[in-house]
């Protein structure tokens, strides 16, 4: 009877479990939102694996020397399309608590017990050379701060292109000695260095434990100072209006997204 039991085929669920890659097998996994992502991404990674997908023949300037020399020396080149895709499993290290905090709508920082420097973004070890890489302590940060600097983007790297146009900035959270990079959901017409902001979070369901879960909004009722860098030259504001409208049209064409009426 005992032997027969052993010969029975494994249950379907057990089979599935064995097929998943065995990472971190010696460690307990406390929260796992990863296996699902791994399963979803596996076919994409497979699709994008190193492969020659196609080719074309391109005729162009060749050889050394000056521009004129190479224009006189046209050659045909064979150009291949080669793919490569992968999924990285990356640890947030000793500052993982910060990213866990984002999931719960909390902002965390660290403080050096020796020199008192407050880090947000947090550092697990103080970088003040006098403190000799002292381990820092976790503290709760307030959700308010000021804009240290900013830019208005009309072009972005590939993964962020669909969100254009947007403003990126560095916010010095109240009580912190450093500044954190974040999205500014503030119309650039009202934006200035020193502006008081409040950190807000995406709806809980959309959070990924990523810095993009958080963004800054302006605290209402602040006077726009005349010295603000974007107020000094109204012509620049006009050019920005044109550039951001053109960018919105481009994004609508390419991605079918209307980013022009988000209010920031």
């Amino acid at each position: 009877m005992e032997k027969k039991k052993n010969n029975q085929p494994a249950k379907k669920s057990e089979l599935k479990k064995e097929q998943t890659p065995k990472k971190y097998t010696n460690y307990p996994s406390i929260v796992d939102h990863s296996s699902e992502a791994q399963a979803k991404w596996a076919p994409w990674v497979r699709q994008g694996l190193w492969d020659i997908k196609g080719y074309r023949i391109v005729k162009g300037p060749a050889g050394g020397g000056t521009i004129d020399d190479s224009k006189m020396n046209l050659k045909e080149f064979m150009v291949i399309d080669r793919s490569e895709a992968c999924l990285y499993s990356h640890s947030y290290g000793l500052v993982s608590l910060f990213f866990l905090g984002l999931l719960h709508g909390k902002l965390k920082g660290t403080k050096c017990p020796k020199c008192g420097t407050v880090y947000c973004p947090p550092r697990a070890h103080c970088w003040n050379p006098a403190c000799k890489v002292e381990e820092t302590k976790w503290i709760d940060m307030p959700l308010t701060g000021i804009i240290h600097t900013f830019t208005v983007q009309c072009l972005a790297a590939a993964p962020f292109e669909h969100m254009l146009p947007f403003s990126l900035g560095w916010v010095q959270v109240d009580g912190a000695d450093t500044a954190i990079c974040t999205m500014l959901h503030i119309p650039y017409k009202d934006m200035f260095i020193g502006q008081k902001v409040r950190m807000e979070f995406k709806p809980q369901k959309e959070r990924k434990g990523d810095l993009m879960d958080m963004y800054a909004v302006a605290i209402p009722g602040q006077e726009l100072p005349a010295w603000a860098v974007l107020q000094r030259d109204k012509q620049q504001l006009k050019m920005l209006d044109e550039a951001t409208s053109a960018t919105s049209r481009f994004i609508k064409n390419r991605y079918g997204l209307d980013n022009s009426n988000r209010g920031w």
Partner: protein
Amino acid sequence: MSERRVAVCGGGIFRPDIWRGENAEEGVAIAYRDMLDSMPGFDPFDIDALMMSYFSDHLNQQLCMGWIIQDYLGLHNKPGYRVEAGGSTSLDAIANAYYMIRSGLFDVILVPGWEWMSEVDTATTNMMIASAADTDWDFTVGGYYNAYYASLEVRHMQLYGETCEDLGKIAIKNHNAATHNPYAQWRMEHGKSYITLDDYWKSRLVCWPYRTLNNALISEGAACLLLAAEDRVKRYTDSPMWITGVGLGTDSMRPGDRLADFPFASFRDQAAIYPDFVKRPKTPYPEMANFGSMHVAALRAYAQAGITDPLKEIDIAELFTPYDGVELCFYEDLGFCGRGQGKDVVREGLCEYGGELPVTLSGGLTAQGHPVGATSLYQTIFLYYQLAGKMKKKYGPDALQVKGARKGLLTGHGGTACQGGVIVFERD
């Protein structure tokens, strides 16, 4: 330590362009051959080691590209290694070659540099380059380098009052200079006509305040440089360019951390004119306005070269300026003027051709081209022919020659000036 001097003996160019049909090893070979043609007394068997300069592996899906280069040139029994430091890669390769020769262990070092950056589309190239920023904290927020540098420039603008027009003037200076450079990518794309402020305002706004004309080009290209010890130099060139000062420096990975930048705390004197309407960070220099790594690198290089007044003593500078606000800030950080006075240098035309200290006459990163591993090599070759007084021989009849130039300055940096260096060159 050995006291013998080290010189740049010459170099070769495979010009940068948005796309080059030849692959990297062929491009380097063409640049190497260009160098050999200019140096009849040189024998490849003289080379003691190679210092290979290239930034990216993932732009071309090739690890250990240096090995391919070394064997393609037939130099594969020599010691050789790769230098990588983001944008600072090519300057660091020159610095390392200098240290090795200066140490007395090597006499002649070849520095090949290259980058092939157009295999993926432009937005992806930007993404891959931006993975040199902190991918947990900075890259992840919508960013790419253009946006980081634009933010730094906005801070500097707010503190010290330069305008977008000042940035435009720098762009015009560098692009118009590049029309005199027959190897410049801008001249290939645009031709030989000058641009004006009107053209600048019409160019596309990328990240305010930067427009396309303010930004480094994406390029493919290669260059080779030959460095040799004093007693070997005569065989290769009659106009050696001596390296008289090399200074390196670093700063924080994330620019946001420079508000509490302890190693720079002693540089507070730089903050004397810090405006009062903006909150002062814990350490006011360089914070997110200036480039501390370049400041300390310059101090170190100047001390070695005995330079006390760079604006007066240096005759020509090739600055590594991927964005034009960086050039303005560098005027301050390199000591051409006080902190906050970069805009005056622009407005007085001190760094234009014919000015007190002409800067980036090659066109630099925004107009000559920026294949990362080759960029500083192109700029060094440009300085070599400037100091030798032989510009027209290499760069043709239109070339801008600074007459009687004796001292040249080169800078390079990577990230948001997370790492950088300054080299002072001198001719006899």
